[in-house]
C-alpha cells in the first residue's frame, strides 16, 4: 500500500551488503535512485539497501589499457574522466539532465537496462564487460530484453570495464511529445576499412554490428527480423529510418 516502508540500510562495505541481501531476499539495491524511486510511486516500498557508502564501488582505475569503473560512480563523474573524452562523454551528456547525471550511477544504469540507455549503448560499442560479485559478463550478452539482464537474483554489479583509447562517434535523437518519449541513437567506430555500428531505440535491446563496409541499412532490416521491436511512442518504421540516418551521420564523423 502507498506509503508503507520496508526500511532503509546503508552498509559500509561489500561484505555487509552481501549479508543484508542474503538476509532480505526482497530488498532492493538503492544506487542513484533515479529509476528505482519513480518506479515505486504509489507502491509499497521494499527494504532499501543504499550502496552509496561503499567506497570500493566508487573508484575509477586504469589497468593496462582497460578502464574499470566502480558501479557506484555517477555518470557525471564518469563523463569528467579523461579516459571518456570524446564520443563516450558526449553520449553520457544526452542522459536526462545535469541533476539526473549527478545521481545516476553506472551500476544503476546497467541493472535497469533501459533499452534506450546511453551507457549500455557505449559500453556495448566498446565491447565492454559488466563485473559482478560473481563473474564477468560480456556486454553483448548482458542485456536480454527491455529492462531484462543476465543478472541472477541477488547478484551485485561491482564495476564496468572497457578498453580505453578507442574512438567512436555517436548521434542521438530525443523525441519528446505528448504520448511519451522516443530515443534513438547510433554509434559508429572505424575498424580498418569498414565500420562497426551500435544502435539503440529500435529493437528491445542495444545491438552491435560486425564490420560493415557499405550501407548499414540491410543490417538494420535484419535486426527487425531477429529481435522484437521496442514498443515506443513512435512507429518502428520512423525509428528504423531515423536510426539509419543517425548511423550515416555518425559514420561521417567517425
Amino acid at each position, binding site marked *: 500500500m*502507498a506509503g508503507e516502508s520496508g526500511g532503509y540500510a546503508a552498509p559500509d562495505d561489500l561484505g555487509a551488503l552481501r549479508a543484508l541481501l542474503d538476509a532480505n531476499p526482497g530488498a532492493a539495491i538503492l544506487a542513484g535512485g533515479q529509476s528505482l524511486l519513480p518506479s515505486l510511486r504509489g507502491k509499497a516500498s521494499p527494504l532499501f539497501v543504499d550502496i552509496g557508502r561503499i567506497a570500493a564501488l566508487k573508484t575509477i582505475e586504469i589497468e593496462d589499457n582497460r578502464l574499470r569503473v566502480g558501479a557506484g560512480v555517477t555518470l557525471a563523474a564518469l563523463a569528467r574522466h579523461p579516459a571518456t573524452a570524446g564520443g563516450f562523454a558526449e553520449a553520457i551528456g544526452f542522459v536526462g539532465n545535469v541533476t539526473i547525471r549527478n545521481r545516476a550511477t553506472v551500476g544503476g544504469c546497467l541493472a535497469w537496462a533501459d533499452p534506450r540507455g546511453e551507457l549500455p549503448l557505449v559500453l556495448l560499442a566498446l565491447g565492454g564487460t559488466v563485473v559482478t560479485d560473481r563473474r564477468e559478463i560480456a556486454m553483448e550478452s548482458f542485456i536480454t530484453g527491455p529492462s531484462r539482464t543476465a543478472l541472477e537474483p541477488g547478484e551485485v554489479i561491482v564495476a564496468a570495464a572497457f578498453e580505453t583509447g578507442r574512438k567512436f562517434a555517436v548521434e542521438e535523437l530525443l523525441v519528446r511529445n505528448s504520448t511519451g518519449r522516443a530515443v534513438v541513437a547510433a554509434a559508429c567506430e572505424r575498424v580498418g576499412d569498414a565500420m562497426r555500428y551500435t544502435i539503440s531505440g529500435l529493437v528491445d535491446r542495444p545491438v552491435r554490428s560486425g564490420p560493415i563496409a557499405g550501407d548499414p541499412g540491410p543490417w538494420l532490416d535484419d535486426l527487425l527480423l531477429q529481435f522484437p521491436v521496442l514498443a515506443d511512442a513512435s512507429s518502428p518504421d*520512423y525509428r528504423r529510418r531515423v536510426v539509419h540516418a543517425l548511423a550515416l551521420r555518425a559514420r561521417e564523423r567517425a
Partner: protein
Amino acid sequence: MKFGVGQSPRRVEDERLLTGRGRYTDDFQPEGTAYGVTVRSPYGHARILGIDTADARAMPGVLAVYTAEDIAHYGPIPCLVPLPGRIETYRALLTKDIVRFVGDGVAFVVAETRAAARAAAEAVVVDYEELPAAATLDAALAPGAPAIWESAPDNRTFDWHIGDENATRAAIAAAAHVTRLRIVQNRVAPTSMEVRAALAEWSDDTGLTLTVGSQGVAAMHKTLSREILKCPPERLRVVTGDVGGGFGLKVFLYPEYGLVLHAAEHLKRPVKWTGERSDAFQTDSHGRAVVSEAALALDAEGNFLALAVESWSDLGAYQAQFGPAIQTMAGGRIIGGVYRIPAIHNHVHGVVTNTAPVDAYRGAGRPEATYLVERLIETAARETGRDAGDLRRRNLLRPDELPHANGLGLTFDVGNFPALLDAALEKADWTGFPARRAAAEARGLRYGRGLAYYVEIAGGGDLDEFADVRFLADGTIEAAVGTQSNGQGHETSYAQVLAERLGVPMDQVRIVQGDTARLEVGRGTGGSRSMVWGGGALIEAASTIIEKGLDLARTDLGEDVDFGDGLFRARGTNTTMSLAELAARHPQALDTRARYAKEKPTPTFPNGCHVAEVEVDPETGRVRVARYSIVDDFGTLVNPLLVEGQVHGGIAQGLGQALLENVVYDESAQLLTGSFMDYGIPRADDMPRSIAFASRPVPNPNNPLGAKGCGEAGTIGAMPSVMNAIVDALEGTHVDMPATPETLWRICRDLAEKAAA
C-alpha cells in the same frame, strides 16, 4: 533609488523567491494541521452504485471521510457565463451518482498525516458501473453518442453566433478566391510549477480562513461565500501567498477548496489539501480544445472580403466557470484580427465530453482566434502567389481608419498596425530570407518562415479595480492592490508606478496583495489586465493622496502650497515638507482607498508581429527555431525588462503547444498524458537561441498609464508564427499542432517521393 515608469529595476520579489523565502500555499503550516486527499474516479464515465467508507474510517489516523451526502447543503461550482440558451451542467463538490471524467471526485478523506489520508483514500471502496464514454469532439458529436448530461442529449450545451451570416455567405459565393482550412487546436494542460493547494482554518470568533493559490482573492471569496458555502461574507477570509504560476487555471474554484473549508469547520482544526502532479494533469482546467472550419474570401486584388468560421468548442465534462466564454465572448469577437474584413460570421457550438473541464489558459480564446486567421492568411498568400507580408499590409487597418468597429462588437481604438508589420519585417531581415533558406538547404535541411500579426483584447469586460494605500509608522507606503501576481512581478512594477506618482524612492513603497481582510474588493489578475487596471487604481490613489496632502500642508505650511518631487512646498519660499514628514505628522490622514472605474468596458488592444524561421531536418523531422523576431505595441511599458520576460515565457508556452504539448484521452476516456513522463513541455533547448524583441508603443488613450497589457501576447503570436514557418518549410503542406517529428518526417518523405517521381 528613484525608479519610475519606463525603467527596468530588477524584481524586488526575486531575492525572497530565489532564496527559498517565498511562502506558497503548502508552506503555510498551522499547528495541528490535518490533511485531505480526494478519492477520484478511475473511469471517464460511470455510474456510482455505492460507496463504502467503513474500512477507510477505521484506519489509523483517519478523522473523517466525506461523500456527496455530507456536503449536500453546499451549492455547486457555478458556470458564470451568460450565453443565451446555454444548458447548465452542475458540478457539485463531490459527485453523487455519475462520474464524468477521470479524476472526478467522489469522496474526501481527512487524516492526521498525508500518508494516512492517502492510505485511507485507497481503502474507500466505490462500486462503479462503467458507461460508454465520449472522450473527443468526434465521439461526442457522433450519432448515438452516449449522453453525458441528460439535459443535453446530443452533448451540445449552446449554440452561439456573431456577425452577419448572410453578408458573409454572399461575399464568399461571389469572391475571386476562397481559402478554406480545418484547424485543430490541441488540448493543453497548463502545468503551473506550483500545483494547486488549499488550507482551511476555523475560528469560533472569526469563522473560516482559506489560504489558496489564486489569481485574485476577492473573486474566490465571492464565489465561495455566496455560491458554495452560502455564508455571510464576513464569516470567510481568503488569503493568497506567493503563487507559482497560474496561466488562468488558478482563477477558478475547484472542489477541494470547498471541501477543506467544510472539513475545517466540521473538525474544528486546520485542514490542508495539496495536489500532486497527477491531480494537476487530471483536474486542473485544461486549455484550448477547439476544432474550426474556416473560410477566407479575397477579391482579385487580394483584398479580404469575408471570413466565415464554425467551431466546436470542447468544454470537458462540466462547463467550467468561464469555459463557455472562451471561444465566444473572450475570443469569438476578435476572430478577424485587426484586418479590414467587411463581413464576418462566427458560429460556435459548445460540446461536452468525458474529459477534464476546459477553461481559460494564457490568452483564453484570443490565441485560438489569431491562430485561425493567421493560418488562413498565410495559406491564402501561398494559394494566390502573394508575399505574406504584402497580403497582410494590404488588409491591415491603417491608423486613419481607426477607431474601427469590427462588426462583432469590438472597436479598435488606436494602433499603427502596418508600421509594426514593417518594423517586424525589417527586424527579421525579411529580404535576407532566400539566402538563409539556400544556406540551410545546402546543409540538407528544409527551411521556412512564418508570420503572425496578433491582436489581444486585454482587460475585456472590466469596469473597475481597487487600491488601498497606507502610510506606516516606519515610513513605508504600503499599497494593497486587488490583483494577484502569479509570478509577473507586480511587487516591482506597481511600486515603480506609485513611487513615481508620489515622488518617493521605490524602496519606500511596498506592494501587498492576496488578503480579503486587507482589501476585500478587486478583480484579480487575468486577461493581461493588471497593469492597466491595477496601475490605474494606484494612480487614482496617488492623486487622492496628493490632494489630501495639499490640504494638510496648507495647515502646516500656509495657504499657497504645491507638490512636486515628493515635496510639499510653500510657493515662493524654500519651506518644504516631504510626503513622509507630512504622513508622520498626521497619522492615517493620508491613507486612501481608491477605485479606478470606467462607465463601460474599455478593453485595450495590445498587438504586434512575430516572425519565426525554422529548420526542419527531413531525415528525423526535428524542428529548430532558427530565428525569432517580434515588434510589439503594448502601449507604455512600465518595466521593459519584465515585459520582455513575459514575452519570452509566453513564447515558450506557444511554442510548447505548437511542437510538443497535447492532452490525450483514449477511447474509453482514460487520460494517457497523466504525468511529465508522457506530457511534453518545452525545455530551454526547444527555445530559439535568441529572440529579437522591440517595442513600438502607441499609448492607449483610455488609461492614465497608456498601457495595454502584455502577459498573454507572446503565447498568442508564437503558435501561428511557428506553425506558419513549419508549413512553409513543407511547401505548404497542412500540419496541425503539435507538429511532432514523426509527423513532419512523414511529410518530408512524401514530398521527397513526389519530387523524385
